[in-house]
């Protein structure tokens, strides 16, 4: 039988990862369905597994002067229920809308990121939070901005021998986050499109805006021209700003969930709704 490793220390985990290249497994909510999908058409898949679930120190949220460190294995339920500041309101809203409660209890933030699905609900939030990925190998650690870590459709910069140990979110005092998801049913639904944003005010004016859209391009994208256009506005003025031209970084496609044209239109509406939410 192909090996299944379940190390009890990070050191062992990294050593196994380096020596065998075994596939990291966290909540398994992406890996198990993938196995099932492949088996259904006679393509059984039993990779060598590096189960991270018994490695201490990979879960939970810590706050420091620099910001927050969200352990790789932190589940969506933990994020939804953590006492986090309004900066995280978008990420927490996403946490409540990923799958159903069962998936939220198991699925992890790093698993969502490494799967790098265009429809991963965590990803636009991490982009809007300016999060960095903390990566470790047996020989050291490095950090990469989430935008640089995601290299393409279901592709990342995760190197051989590497695992994600945490997501790092820098402080952004007074900022608030929001998230808007669009799906064809209430629960257990993959996004047709979604938008995430973080807004920081100075006085009654927008001082900083970080806006990202998911499921409308191979990788979720920030929208720099929209972000610039928001600076200096009063919050009540924000909803009228998003225009189709702001979506230039996106490349919506048509699939079973929606047409490309709808995605493009819906993204603008979601952005307006998202920004209207900040004004409330």
């Amino acid at each position, binding site marked *: *039988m192909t090996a*299944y490793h*379940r190390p009890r220390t990070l050191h062992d985990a990294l050593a196994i990862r380096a020596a065998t290249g075994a596939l990291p*497994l966290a*909540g*398994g*909510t992406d890996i*198990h*369905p993938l196995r*099932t*999908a492949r*088996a*259904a*058409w*006679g*393509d*059984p898949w*039993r990779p060598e*597994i590096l*189960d991270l*679930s018994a490695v201490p120190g990979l879960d939970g949220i810590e706050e420091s002067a620099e910001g927050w460190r969200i352990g790789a294995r932190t589940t969506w*339920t933990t994020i939804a229920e953590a006492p986090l500041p309004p900066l995280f309101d978008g990420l927490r809203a996403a946490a409540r809308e990923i*799958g*159903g*409660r*069962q*998936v939220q*209890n*198991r699925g992890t933030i790093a698993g969502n990121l490494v799967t790098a699905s265009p429809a991963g609900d965590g990803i636009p939030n991490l982009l809007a939070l300016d999060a960095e990925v903390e990566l470790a190998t047996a020989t050291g650690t490095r950090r990469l901005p989430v935008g640089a870590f995601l290299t393409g459709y279901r592709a990342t910069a995760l190197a051989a021998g590497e695992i994600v140990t945490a997501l790092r979110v820098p402080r952004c005092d007074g900022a608030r986050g929001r998230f808007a998801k*669009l799906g*064809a*049913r*209430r*629960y*257990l*639904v*993959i996004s*047709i499109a979604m938008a995430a944003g973080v807004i920081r005010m100075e006085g009654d004016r927008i001082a900083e805006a970080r806006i990202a859209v998911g499921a409308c391009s191979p990788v979720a994208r920030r929208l720099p021209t929209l972000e610039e256009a928001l600076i200096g506005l009063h919050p*009540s003025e924000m*909803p*009228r700003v998003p*225009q189709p031209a702001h979506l230039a970084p996106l490349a919506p496609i048509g699939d*079973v*969930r*929606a*047409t490309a*044209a*709808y*995605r493009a*239109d*819906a993204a*603008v*509406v*979601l952005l*307006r*709704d998202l920004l*209207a939410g900040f*004004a409330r």
Partner: protein
Amino acid sequence: MIALTINGTRHEVAADPLAPLSDTLREGLGLTGTKEGCNAGDCGACTVLMEGAQVCACLISTAQAEGAEITTVEAQDPLLGRLRQAFLARGAAQCGICTPGMLMASLDLLRRNAAPDRAAVEDALGGVLCRCTGYQQIIEAVLDAARGDIAAPIATEAGAAVGAPLPRVDGAAKVAGTERYGADAAPDGALWLRAVRSPHAHARFTLGDLDAARDRLGLAAILSARDVPGRNAFGIMPDLKDQPVFADGYVRYRGEAVLGLLGTRDAVAAVRDAELPIAWDPQPALHGVAAALAEGAPRLHDHAPDNVLVRGHLRTGDVDAAFATATARAEGNFRTAFVEHAYIEPEAGFAIPGAGGAMTIAACTQAPVMDREEAARVLGVPDEAVRIIPTACGGGFGGKLDVSVQPLLAVAARVTNRPVRMTYARTESMASSTKRHPATLHARMAADAQGRFTAFALEGDFNTGAYASWGPTVANRVPVHASGPYRVPNVWNRTRAVYTNDTPAGAFRGFGVPQAAIATEALVDDLAEALGMDRWEIRRRNAIGKGDITPSGQVLHASAGLPECLDALKPEWDAMLARVAAHNATQRRHRLGAGIACMWYGCGNTALSNPSTMRITLARDGTLTLFNGAVDIGQGSTTVIAQIAADALGLPIDALRQVIGDTALTPDAGKTSASRQTFVSGRAAQDAARALRARILALANAGEAARLALDGARLTIADTHTTRVIDLAALDADLTAEARYDPPTVALDADGQGIPYATYGFAAQIALVRVDTALATVKVEEIVAAQDVGRAVNPLLIAGQIHGGIAQGLGLALMEEFIPGRTENLHDYLIPTAGDMPRIRIHLVEDPEPEGPFGAKGVGEPALVPTAPAILSAIRHATGVRMTEVPVLPHRLHERIGGGEPPPNPLPSLAPGD
């Protein structure tokens, strides 16, 4: 060995550490209360608690459960006990396959939150799919359990069962998690069978050396067409067995079985299909009816040169003349998609070979006697050699009328002479099993100046996929029903069932009528609009009723309660319209809309004999047994038929035990389809029980009104003046009575004239929707249903059928679209979740059917039919857009609302009160 702690008990189990916990629980530890509906996190049937939190056991690697506390439905726990009771009392378990998952998700919730509100319950249950109940009774049950407010079991006296909202008699095992479905049991040492299926929609193929492959792969056998001992053919129609068990060099759809791999579970699972000696020669595929009917399209079956399987036809009056003189005319083209049954239990079962050609097959099914015929033909043995023992059925909705695993198991068990078991994977189930026919409809309708309908015409093409299955039934049922439950003097309906290279379409709750109703009800709205009439008013004016003549020329002598259904809805309709008007006066983006639709549905087969036979025995030891061949697929026939039999006999229902649907033990009660079990089998049970009562009364020389009481083997017969006691033990033989009932019908002539059904169900529904016009999303907020059920034998179960029908109708309208190769799992194929359901209110109309038992008639299918058209009517009311294609996915509605336009100023998202 992996050590697991399940419900407080430590177990050591050998398993691949990556194997899903659900699999280890079921196959490793025999804890089959935890169900598997998808193995992908999509259905929640496998929900267990891990460290007290609900998780999908199919997403947990067994190794991850080591050291954790796992709680399954088998647990003993006071709170869980309360939930079980509440589920039973509320009718929250229909087929019961989702029940273990629902119970565990509820337990997780109530431990976190002892007093949840409705929204919290929906949140907690959002990850568990139920295809039967529409979630209402489940949510109520959880709220009841939280409040500790659980209805006490109803004790019914003799003669009081019919009409009582009794919990289902087979419910205890469902809430305990001990019910045995197709995949829950198998003989020791059974070989596993896995079908290798075509990845191509249309292809020729040749097979290489299978024996060598078998040896190389360590399998017990590799089966192909050449191994089928009898005829390599099955199919629903008596004279058209067009589907092979194993394709013979040629496949007509993606998902068709080509080979059967037999061996240990691990061995068959480890085989890569690409390594098998199959040389494929893909052919251009005919997807959709237009391709199959196109000039020069290849012929898919020799018996259908133009790819038309069958035509249906009904004609009465002079449609052309009526259209020419009408005041208002409406016309439209409509399209519906393939719809998947999405029963949460994938097909499963096992077969045990016997001596002398005998074969026993246990599997989930809706039609044991038909399964027997199919298996016998494939084996080349007489029907009597095959015994079908239905397992509990985790949902059917028409999809388990056709055989699935049965012929494959039969062949495999015969060839190897060993017991064999098989469980379809979710994707295999979806790719290979039948679907609702996609319909392409062109319909016209006309009315006079008073809004009276004068003419209706429909041309409909139904994509029957690669094989006939129930295509002829659909093609024949639709012409009879298509003009709707209205008086229409001039009707001309023509249908075709067309072969394509798509997944076979078969029977699905309503047999084509739901598709046709989408067209008809839209035209009714058109006519109302053209004439400036209210949509309720035009329906009420035309509603067919007692004494009216159907387009088949049938006079409705009795039990035609559509006018009463509409009257029951009128106050709520008016209130809904007022609410919509008030809301929309101030809201531009989020628009409300009210919609309405009606339906009728003939119970039983269309102008074909469909008898049921029931036997009831009062044995000398005092046991009273109903030999009931009707399989209960969750809809409740076991309970309803027992209520009927008990009251007809005059003994309390608790005295009755049942033997259900074993072809060796029960007489033929036909299929569980066409809303016929309450009506047809119920009537046979009533007649049998009455005959037994007559024998008892004769023995006691007692009058009709005598009261019976059974105490052990002492049967007391109390007449007005005398009381007699019969010592059953002293009789020479058990007392037995049998009765057969075949609903009276008259064959249809070339113009579809005759008496196709002995009785019809009628219903009307109104729907309130909220449309976000910017995103073009639709939320159904409210549905009020009125349904004429003849007699409500069990109002609790009827409510469950109506809720479930509405849920499926909502799915049909808004989200369900099976696309072969693309939405073959419950991740991409969406069915409603607990959060998608509206509030539902029900008015039952009881216009008794003289043919039916205690006046009852069918309930199951009718509830689904009006839902989708009522929702479409409401969307139109909200947006002005007349949708002619379902499902109304957001992008489809958006396109019609005028996509791309920025929302008008002032920005609607900022509108006050939004």
